[in-house]
Structure formats: structure tokens, C-alpha cells
């Protein structure tokens, strides 16, 4: 178990140290906060656009994050040769595959838990702003809270990363990512609406599941093929997923006070488990039969 956790932690830390990880996080945050600011799309519901943007950002950027971070992490292990060091220290190939995938998914969870509170703040901000707009007629004030928090989270996290790097010799990218997470979570407590948070929670939980499959597919492909091919195959799997557009179904279900039950999240998990298991078995089988030669 200690070996497993050691690899999970290192993989997550390495993924969070990738500049691409911060870029995707900041892009998703910007998307979630700015898209709802186009206030003329209201669907008769002041917070719907914020909800849609949050779900879309988590689904689309989440897929990109889980695929690219996993492929990068696995290929770096193979191409730099650190995989042979891990095997030489008694790690089994099966444990290595599973712990690499778990580590990449852990990094995705940091991304997701930065984005989800921000989206909840945006939804809440839109509700508050909607009431303000109705009473004052000023739609410009509608997105004030969520926009301010998003901009603060992005600017402050970059600044904190730079300070940590300059004065405390802490790495810029993970420091900035963790700061964005902290500000995003803290921002959620700006006039919180816990009933709304509870209403949206099962939908966000359901959206956390597909990236687990993308992570396993990306890991299995990256152990077999080089980075571009592995990323291409994983993106193809994601593209096959697109017609399902789970984010929009969820958004529809939640419109006009609707609900998504926890049973739906559990059913999603049950439906995804065979796919995840198939990807994991394919990955382990690939790695078990692979000669580790230090390919580049």
C-alpha cells in the first residue's frame, strides 16, 4: 500500500507541476466565469448559463486535463527510464499501472475541485445578480460576485505561485494551482446557498466519472504507443463519448428547479465501471508483456 501511495502522490505532484496543467485550469476557470457574463443568454433562468458553463468546462477541459496529463506522465516514466527504477525497487507492473492512473486521476480531482466551487459561486452569483438586476435594472451587476472571485482566483494564484517560487523556493505551477483551489473553495462561501449546492452536487459527481475512464484509456494507450498516438486514441474515445453530451442532459434536468438524484450518479458509476475495468485490464496486459528498453 505504501508503494502504491508513493507512486500516486508522485504522479499527482508531477502532473500538478506541468505548466499545461495550470494553463488548462486557468482556461477552464476563465471559461466558467466569463461565458455566463454574456448576460443576454438567460433561457428565462438567470443562473442557467452559469450552470451550463460550469458543466461544460468540467466535462470538456476535464477530459483534456485527464488525457494529456496521463499521457505526459506515463510517457515521461518510459522515456526518462524512471519506470525501470520503479520496477527495480520491487513494484509489480499491475500496481504500477493502477497507481499511475490513480495519481493522474488525483491530479484531475485537484482541477475539478478548483472548478466546481467556482462554478457554484458563479451559479449563486447569477441568482443574486438576477434579483439585483430585476430590482435595479442593471444587468452589469449580475455577474459581479462570480467574476470578481474568478479573476481574484486566477490573478492571486499566479501571484502566489511567483512569490512562493521567488522567496520560498517552492515550485511555481503547483503553488499557483493549490492557491487557485484555495481561493475557489473560499469564494464558494460568499453568501452561500447550500440548498442549491446540494441540488447540483449529484450532477457534478456524475461528471467526475468519465475522466476516470479517459485516464485509464490514456494510461493503457501511453504504455503501448508513443505520446501522439496515445493522445490521439484517447481523444478518439472522448469523441465517441461526445454524442452523449452528459453535461447538457444534466443541465436540462436541472432547469426550472428540476433535480438530478444521487441514484443517477450511482447509475453512471455502474455504467462506467465495465469500461474502466476493460481499460485497466488492457493496460495491465500491455504493461505485463512489455520489454522496458528505455525507448525515446
Amino acid at each position, binding site marked *: 500500500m505504501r508503494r502504491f501511495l508513493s507512486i500516486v502522490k508522485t504522479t499527482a505532484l508531477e502532473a500538478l*507541476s506541468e505548466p499545461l496543467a495550470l494553463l488548462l485550469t486557468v482556461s477552464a476557470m476563465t471559461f466558467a466565469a466569463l461565458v455566463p457574463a454574456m448576460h443576454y443568454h438567460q433561457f428565462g433562468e438567470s443562473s442557467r448559463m452559469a450552470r451550463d458553463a460550469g458543466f461544460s468546462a468540467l466535462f470538456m477541459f476535464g477530459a483534456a486535463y485527464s488525457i494529456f496529463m496521463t499521457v505526459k506522465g506515463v510517457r515521461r516514466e518510459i522515456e526518462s527510464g524512471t519506470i525501470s527504477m520503479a520496477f527495480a525497487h520491487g513494484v509489480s507492473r499491475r500496481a504500477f499501472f493502477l497507481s499511475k492512473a490513480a495519481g493522474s486521476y488525483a491530479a484531475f480531482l485537484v482541477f475539478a475541485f478548483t472548478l466546481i466551487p467556482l462554478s457554484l459561486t458563479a451559479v449563486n452569483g447569477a441568482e443574486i445578480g438576477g434579483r439585483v438586476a430585476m430590482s435595479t435594472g442593471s444587468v452589469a451587476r449580475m455577474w459581479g460576485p462570480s467574476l470578481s472571485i474568478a479573476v481574484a482566483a486566477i490573478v492571486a494564484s499566479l501571484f502566489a505561485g511567483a512569490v512562493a517560487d521567488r522567496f520560498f523556493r517552492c515550485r511555481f505551477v503547483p503553488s499557483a494551482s493549490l492557491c487557485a483551489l484555495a481561493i475557489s473553495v473560499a469564494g464558494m462561501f460568499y453568501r452561500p446557498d447550500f440548498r442549491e449546492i446540494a441540488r447540483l452536487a449529484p450532477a457534478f459527481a456524475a461528471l467526475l466519472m468519465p475522466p476516470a475512464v479517459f485516464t485509464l484509456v490514456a494510461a493503457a494507450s501511453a504504455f503501448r504507443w508513443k505520446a501522439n498516438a496515445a493522445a490521439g486514441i484517447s481523444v478518439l474515445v472522448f469523441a465517441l463519448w461526445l454524442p452523449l453530451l452528459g453535461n447538457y442532459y444534466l443541465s436540462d434536468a436541472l432547469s426550472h428547479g428540476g433535480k438530478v438524484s444521487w441514484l443517477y450518479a450511482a447509475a453512471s458509476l455502474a455504467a462506467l465501471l465495465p469500461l474502466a475495468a476493460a481499460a485497466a485490464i488492457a493496460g495491465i496486459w500491455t504493461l505485463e508483456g512489455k520489454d522496458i528498453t528505455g525507448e525515446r
Partner: protein
Amino acid sequence: MEQSEGVIALKGVSKVFRDFWLRPTVKAVEGLDLSVAKGEVFALLGPNGSGKSTTIKMILGLMAPSGGEVRLFGRKPDSAVARSRLGYLPELSYLHPYLTARETLMYYAGLCNLDRRTAKERTAQLLAMVGLESVAGRPVGGFSKGMARRIALACSLIGKPELLILDEPTSGLDPVSTSEVKSLVKTLSAGGMTILMTSHLLGDAQDVCDRYAILNFGRKVAEGDLKTLGTSLQDVFLSKVGVGRGFDVAGFLK
């Protein structure tokens, strides 16, 4: 089940690399028999492309042999139990670039299943031993070749292995560091550790090893200690491997 056949035993081992269509491309190792006993310092010598690294990778379970049998502590090398008793220093220092020196050692301590307290203690001891205490908080991606070599050496020792496999241990080190590594090998050997090393530097091997095997084109061409092989390792090496014909520069300069 552990047998009394030595720490490492290779019987008729061969390795053939194949292309995408499974056609054989390179015969890297052919009919290799080798045995390393407990407490021995054994050197695997040979020119570039002689099959030394491939042999080590088969011992480590990183590659499956095409034929023959490899045993590590009496088990198949894909056994995690057998591999957990060894330490490995690869020819190139394989490190995670984003991790600091301390995090790197803590990571390998985790892979060796050490508890947190022991891991911290051993990390501090090894950082002091390889002289990298002052840069313990720096990412290893920015280390010089020599510093990376030192931290990789520390990684290979963190689990206090029974068998240490060193692939070109002095590669990239200055003369002072080379002498320190040789002295370390002698000390570890005196403490009962079994060591298998490869080297291009015959003088280094001669200084620290008890027994030698010379490989050429994947085949073992000589094996034994200095007494059985002859007076000088250099002479044996040249007689078995042959003197290089050198570059034909004259034609190029015409």
C-alpha cells in the same frame, strides 16, 4: 522457493529483439550462463553493444529472455519479492525532473516500503553521504550530471539492498567522485552486500571486483578471477574482444 544457487543465476539465456512483424532484428545475448554468489563483487565487462545492459535488464525483470532461464534470489525476476531485495543504479541517471532531491529519495523510500520515520532518517543519511544536503530542496531536473549520478546512487541504496546492480557506476563522475564510488563499493562489499557492476573502465573494475565475465557480441568469452584469467584485465580483454581497427581517416583526408 529460494534455492542455494547463488544470488543471480543465468542458464542458457538469450535475447532476440524483433521488429513490428516479429522478424528477428538483433541477437543481443546468446546462450549466456552466469552465476553470482552471495557477497561477491562481480563485473560484467565488454565493449559497447556486447549485451551487458540487456543482461542486466533481464536480471531486473525489465525484459523477458527469448530463451533460457534467469533466477534472482532463486525466483523468477518478475517476482516483486525478489526485486524488492535489490538496488539498481542505471547507466543514465533516471530521475523525476520536477521532484526535489529530498522528494526523490522519499519517493524511492516509499517504493522500498519504508515507514515514514525510517524513510526520513535514511534520506538525511544518504543526502549527507553523497554530499547533496545543501541542494536537498532543489528539483533534480536542474542538477549537473555528477549531482544526478550521486542522487541516483543514493536512490539505489535507500532500501539497504542485499544485491546492488551498478550499470557504469562511475560514468559522468570526476576522478575524486570516481574514487569515492570505488571506496563505497568496497565498504558495501565488506558489509556483505552482493554487487554486480558493468564498466568500460577496466582499471575501475580491477580495483573493486572479485570476479569478471567478459561479453562480446552477446556471448560470454571469458569468466573468472584475475588468477584464472591472467595477469592483467586489460590484456585479457584485448585478447578476447580484439583490438579495434580504428577509424580509416586517411581516405577521408585525401
